[in-house]
């Protein structure tokens, strides 16, 4: 439920989201070297595919956001990558909307990228740690990312109309299982990448058997 559809938010919130998105994209695209476009695109499509996986939670299921993981692997390039993913999701599958695209990008990508930039700084210092410890650390970060997204979604709705305020508690509750599942799975992904391809996380490969 991180994708807010068209028709819910007020014009000032939509415009605010669009302005932040255009600003973020402009800054990022300027820094994005043209030779990096294919790699960014293929990772964007990978995250798009991975977010289609339905993870069972009790009788229901959740789709992962993977914004924290994207931030870790792609850094700032995650913002255009998430944007492309959201646009494809909105157009092909009907998750989210077109006018709310800006707000959705801010809600999903910004917390992920912010947390990931912080996590990368810490990762760079975590030389001796094993894959399990790093995975657990990243899991904690990821939970915060999802909570950040929940806070942004709540703020977008609350700023749009005071009528939404009582409903926000219920909407916020639905993020708890997502935060837990996303944290655990991202932790496992990171532990896996640390063992198999540490350079994808900006780490140097360690000799066999060290991890």
């Amino acid at each position: 439920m991180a994708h807010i559809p068209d028709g819910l938010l007020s014009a000032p919130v939509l415009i605010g989201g669009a302005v932040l998105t255009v600003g973020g994209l402009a800054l990022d695209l300027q820094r994005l070297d043209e030779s990096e476009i294919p790699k960014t695109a293929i990772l964007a499509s990978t995250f798009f595919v991975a977010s289609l996986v339905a993870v069972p939670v009790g009788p229901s299921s959740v789709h992962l956001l993977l914004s924290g993981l994207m931030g870790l692997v792609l850094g700032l390039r995650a913002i255009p990558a998430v944007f492309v993913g959201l646009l494809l999701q909105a157009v092909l599958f009907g998750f989210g909307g077109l006018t709310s695209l800006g707000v959705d990008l801010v809600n999903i990508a910004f917390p992920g990228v912010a947390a990931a930039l912080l996590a990368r700084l810490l990762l760079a210092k975590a030389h001796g740690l094993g894959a399990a410890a790093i995975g657990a650390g990243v899991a904690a970060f990821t939970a915060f990312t999802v909570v950040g997204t929940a806070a942004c979604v709540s703020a977008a709705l609350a700023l749009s109309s005071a009528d939404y305020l009582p409903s926000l508690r219920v909407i916020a509750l639905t993020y708890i299982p997502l935060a837990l599942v996303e944290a655990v799975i991202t932790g496992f992904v990171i532990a896996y990448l640390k063992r198999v391809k540490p350079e994808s996380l900006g780490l140097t490969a360690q000799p066999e058997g060290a991890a």
Partner: protein
Amino acid sequence: MTETLYCRDEADARPRLDRFDARTRIVTALALIVAALVVRSPFVLMAGLAGLVAFAWFCELRAKEIAGRLLHAEGFLLVLLILLPLTVPGPAALSLGPVELSAPGLDRALKIFLRVNFSALAVLILLAGMEPVRFGHALAGLGVPEKLAHLLLFAARWVALIKEEGLRLHDAMRARAFKASTSLHTFRTLGFFCGQLLVRALERAERIDEAMRCRGFAGRFVLAAEERPGRSDGLFAAGAAVAIIAAVALDRLT
């Protein structure tokens, strides 16, 4: 084949719409959604939704496809539709025992329901059936930065490949009798699935990068616009514009 892991509901092509320029379709969809945000009267919104349903029927969309798509948008909506009539203060319109549904809350919920479904239907009809490559070229034609258009075009191209990669991994998991449930084992398996998908994608990215450099790729493709808006596009856009202006005028005057 993949029902357990993936949701599969990509839309079919729209033969009756494909003759129009993709840019016309994108701009019309956006205009319709913005109009739905501007209109305040539930009756005008209802008429608009009815008009769109008729248009969907004209474009030969199946009822199943429409229903499946509209259900996607309803997660948020369900919470709001139930809670708004109960929580918005105002005179009661309907009391069911101790539960009172307020009139402004019902009005709010009805409008949201109509707006969200109208917008989702507009995207479904006009955009969902469009080839992603065509969509990317049209966006570039509408002034979206070239780097972003390239990113979208490449990503749309590779989604199918990565999905195949994911299906291969999924087949391997099923061959080992993997069944998703709410358990740490499932989460670990899906974590390794995503991790392996990423590793393969990164390696594929390196191969693609080398192959493209070999062919002299310097970071730019020429985005050749093959489409030219014709007379039918003008008629289509004019029809949509008249309908939107009439709806907004009716909404403001009544």
